[in-house]
């Protein structure tokens, strides 16, 4: 499983764009990149997933360069409610049976202030 490295914490202000970068130097050919968000006392929530280039949904964008050794989660115009821990996961989503698992790291604590 590819190891990921993220900043431990980030601070931002309401209305700003926040970019959280995840490093995954040993990503494998079949690995996908997935991001989750977690609020206190809740389980993580799926945000976005991608394989290469750019993926966008209603809440975030995911940028993946050509070498795929890193990825950046972009949150546009954050609000106080975006204060949470964000996890980057890398793994092969197509493995079935044994081996079908991804590893959560310690994540990035994002704090958004007024």
């Amino acid at each position, binding site marked *: 499983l590819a190891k990921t490295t993220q900043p431990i914490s980030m601070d931002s202000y309401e209305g700003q764009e926040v970019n959280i970068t995840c490093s995954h130097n040993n990503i494998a050919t079949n690995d996908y990149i997935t991001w989750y968000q977690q609020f206190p006392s*809740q389980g993580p*929530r799926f945000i976005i*997933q991608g394989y290469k280039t750019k993926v966008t949904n209603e809440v975030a964008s995911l940028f993946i360069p050509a070498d795929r050794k890193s990825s950046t989660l972009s949150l546009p115009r954050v609000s106080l409610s975006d204060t949470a821990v964000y996890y980057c996961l890398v793994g092969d989503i197509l493995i079935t049976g044994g081996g079908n698992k991804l590893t959560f790291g310690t994540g990035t604590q994002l704090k958004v202030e007024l």
Partner: protein
Amino acid sequence: DAGITQSPRHKVTETGTPVTLRCHQTENHRYMYWYRQDPGHGLRLIHYSYGVKDTDKGEVSDGYSVSRSKTEDFLLTLESATSSQTSVYFCAIRLNRNTSYEQYFGPGTRLTVT
């Protein structure tokens, strides 16, 4: 929430006693997971299941066992609880899609071993 419930939601038990946590889902998902979450460690995978009677170990499986006798229930058992197993336990399912690794998490069980 993908129809995931966990029981009990809170439990206090004494060292050396057996404890069973239950994860129940109503949407016939094949993959189910048990994680624990502790301060400074993020989420760590304990065990997972890829079908009825098909289970495998995660990264922190020592001291835990699991069973899945039917699709909807995934049980986590602490045969002899220790204080180091005081934690918040999350159950998760993976959506039945080959092109996505979206997991949905239950509300969590807070276990205290005294």
